[in-house]
């Protein structure tokens, strides 16, 4: 993959800065729309969960947790379902466009976690969490990043599949079977949401740590060197 790079010249001072084109337009567009969609899906999903905050029987009902209404979207079950059943299309569409683009452009090769990345994961974990030395970067994305960005896509796909079973347990009864049935699909759907939120948390921490220019690159595509 040819990486586009330019030297930016300041006519007044004569200084030059390097900049690299890191994020193609399709990836940026899908990223931001999907970020909004994920926010709405989580918020409305939690409001839906509030209607029956349990994974057990209805009689007797044992609530798992009482999620505060202030951190939910939709106001009531019907409203939350409207948000959820509307934004699921936006969520799926941006996911599919992203996957399609990555596949056909070959761009996936730089983020797809493959077996040869496995040995590199632990040194990166040691660097991030235990102040170990920074391993030399061989590619645009380090093994831990690849692991994170690949995992979240897998989680995204699973969130859609479990959601389909929760929404349509009769039409997608064949899909319910590998999930352990309709009842467990709802549990998976909920668990996958928390896994995605864990990714989002880690992702946001890294965004803060990597500074402004890195953040801007997700908007303009171009990353200026510090």
């Amino acid at each position: 993959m040819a990486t586009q790079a330019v030297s930016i010249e300041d006519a007044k001072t004569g200084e030059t800065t390097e900049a690299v084109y890191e994020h193609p337009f399709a990836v940026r567009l899908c990223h931001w729309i999907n970020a909004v969609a994920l926010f709405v899906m989580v918020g409305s999903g939690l409001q839906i969960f509030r209607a029956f905050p349990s994974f057990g029987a209805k009689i007797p009902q044992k609530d798992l947790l009482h999620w505060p209404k202030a951190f939910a979207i939709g106001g009531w079950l019907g409203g939350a379902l409207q948000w959820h059943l509307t934004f699921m299309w936006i969520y799926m569409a941006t996911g599919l466009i992203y996957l399609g683009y990555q596949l056909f452009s070959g761009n996936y090769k730089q983020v797809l976690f493959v077996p040869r990345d496995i040995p590199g994961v632990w040194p990166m974990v040691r660097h991030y969490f235990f102040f170990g030395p920074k391993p030399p970067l061989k590619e645009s994305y380090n093994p831990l990043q690849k692991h994170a960005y690949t995992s979240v896509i897998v989680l995204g796909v699973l969130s859609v599949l479990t959601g389909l079973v929760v929404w349509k347990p009769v039409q997608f009864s064949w899909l319910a079977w590998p999930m352990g049935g309709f009842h467990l699909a709802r549990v998976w759907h909920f668990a996958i949401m928390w896994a995605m939120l864990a990714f989002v948390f880690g992702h946001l921490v890294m965004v803060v740590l990597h500074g402004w220019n890195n953040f801007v690159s997700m908007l303009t595509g171009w990353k200026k060197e510090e």
Partner: protein
Amino acid sequence: MDSRMDKRKFKRVTRRELLKLTPVVAVGAFAIPAFQKPLLKTGLGFSDWASAKLFRSHHLAPTFTDSELTPSNKFPINDYDVDDPEVDLEKWTLSVSGAVQKPGEYTLAQVQALPKVSQNTRHVCVEGWEVIGRFGGARLSDFLTMIGADTTARFLTVECADDYYESLDMATALHPQTLLCYEMYDQPLTREHGAPLRLTIPTKIGYKQAKYLTDLKVTHVLDKVGYWEDQGYSEFYGL
């Protein structure tokens, strides 16, 4: 592939790239109160359209063995105003009207004279819980044949003794597991479960399965959809 670029030109390039992201701002229309309601209505309507497309007339809902049944005392009783609308079971009839050849009053005995079907199927509530119940009754499709219903009509509506009302698309009404149910757990329907007659539709969400039926109408147009649908729930909600 390294090239040189003037600082001002680089700014123009990045600004253009940023502007290409304006479709993201369009999603913000959902935050504008005046647009929110129609947008969500459209989104829900699209989901309902997709639901109707996904519905397969001959695909059966899963059925369960007797050992998998939720005990009858743990089958929740849900209603929107009263558990028991005090139907006079002696005088009860089902009023049939609309696009049918034989409109009029039908007795429970006439419904029970149709071939009886018993099935253990899942009852899924929009709230998120589900139970497996045993339901017995006549196929709605058999009843529609008996009353000479025009099955090219798009909908079927029901009215209930507790003023609840519902509607059903014709494809679902004709589904072999859609029952006019008069028995649960091999016993006559109890009052709180909708005596003497209710709908059981394993391919639909719970709120579609109206209880204490009093009126049934076959129609081409809907003037109202259903009690919960008119509050903002999905109109089709097929499972």
